[in-house]
């Protein structure tokens, strides 16, 4: 094979994403775990699909949040639905929970990257199965997978994690956790060009998995620093 050629197969694999989702925030709270993501799927720099739900319920106890290539998120969602159906068809009183699904997704992602045909995503897989502790796992297109108390993907990693590190506690109430996730996504909307001001929040509390209706975010653009006239406004070459 020529240098730089990764496959002798004439079929090409997509190595860069086309329609993408941005940040996903996940955090454990007192009774379970929540996931939050905005409702935007960008087409490069165009904010193209503004009413997309990037959270998916998997099986009975698990929630999958996807950033990155949307078609890969949809493909994996369909595969997981098929797995959940087979799990139900066993009729053996055993159901797969967040640990099984997140582990499986991790293996799929790593094996795909090893074949140079990745699913171009950053996933947060969360859930709580009845009396077991809450589970939160980050999995990405390289096959990196780890468990944590709170994670964020994409820009949220840079803007949200510091906020989470300051304010997260293990005994947070649901409302506190929702408020913290909302705040992170607000900051992301202000500073991430690919973010949006409408979000979904999903909650896993051990008995049910619920994804909220779309929630509009508050955003304020009337800051003095933003609106008052500045010397350089008339100078087109200014870069401040």
């Amino acid at each position, binding site marked *: 094979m020529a240098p730089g050629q990764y496959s002798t197969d004439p079929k090409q694999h997509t190595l860069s994403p086309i329609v993408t989702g941005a940040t996903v925030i996940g955090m454990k709270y007192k009774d379970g775990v929540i996931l939050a993501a905005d409702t935007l799927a960008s087409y490069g720099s165009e904010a193209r699909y503004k009413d997309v739900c990037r959270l998916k319920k998997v099986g009975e106890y698990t929630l999958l949040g996807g950033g990155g290539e949307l078609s890969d998120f949809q493909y994996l969602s369909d595969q997981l639905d098929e797995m959940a159906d087979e799990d139900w068809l*066993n009729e*053996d*009183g*055993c159901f*797969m929970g967040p*640990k*099984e699904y997140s*582990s*499986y997704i991790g*293996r799929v992602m790593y094996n795909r990257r090893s074949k140079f045909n990745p699913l171009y995503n950053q996933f947060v897989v969360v859930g709580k199965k009845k009396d077991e502790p809450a589970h939160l796992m980050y999995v990405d297109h390289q096959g990196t997978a780890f468990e944590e108390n709170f994670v964020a993907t994409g820009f949220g990693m840079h803007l949200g994690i510091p906020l989470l590190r300051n304010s997260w506690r293990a005994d947070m109430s649901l409302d506190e956790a929702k408020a913290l996730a909302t705040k992170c996504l607000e900051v992301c909307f202000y500073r991430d060009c690919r973010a949006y001001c409408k979000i979904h929040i999903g909650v896993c509390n051990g008995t049910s998995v619920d994804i909220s209706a779309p929630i509009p975010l508050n955003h304020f653009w009337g800051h003095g620093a933003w609106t008052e006239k500045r010397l350089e406004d008339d100078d087109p070459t200014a870069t401040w």
Partner: protein
Amino acid sequence: MARRYDSRTTTFSPEGRLYQVEYAMEAINLAGSTVGVLAEDGVILAGEKKTTSKLLDQAKQHEKLFQLDDAMFCAVAGITSDANILINRLRLTAQQHTYSFSEPMPVEQLVTSICDYKQGYTQFGGLRPFGVSFLVAGYDAHHGFQLYHTDPSGNFSGWKGYAIGVNNNTAMQIMRQDWKPGMKLQEALDLTAKVLVKTMDTASPTAERLEFGIVYKTPEGQVKFRMLKDTEINKLMADATPKEGEEAAGAATSTS
């Protein structure tokens, strides 16, 4: 007898029987006694080894009991070489599940997978069935301690007590009378020993001819598998073997 319909596994006889499968089950009835007992806090499998010879370079060779996963093991009755293929498959299936899902495989799902594999050999390919029956004992978080029996047809059921190999009818009869719900591990071990004393064709059953294995919960709450040591087996069998006069007295009271 409709011999003409025997030779191919994949054909029914006019009476609707699969002769090859039935012949496979016959092979197992000649195997060494194998017993399984389900207790409230554990599961026991025990088997009589058929190949015991001074010349055998025994060391650590197992013939009857094989571990499948951290908290699952099985007892084999039938053609040993066939059993080895299936045991390899069982172990691989259990580990592949743990690799994908980071969780131990539920016992019934593992049993189902090997039974579906065995069933394939009774329906297509023109190959003979596996001449092996298993007793599978294990623990999972979903259903606790479990005991299953599988046969060459690919059928399986869950049991509280089961026996395969020679004298399995006698063994089952004793268990039918003496198995009680809520039995603890030690009582179940005593019952297993009692059954083996009756079914083994030797006057002095010792650890040399026996393998005993248990899945149990440690005081810390962890579930483990282990094989019993020779000293433990000998003590169990000695306690279960009735002394000279007792056997007759026991028989007298049970008939009155």
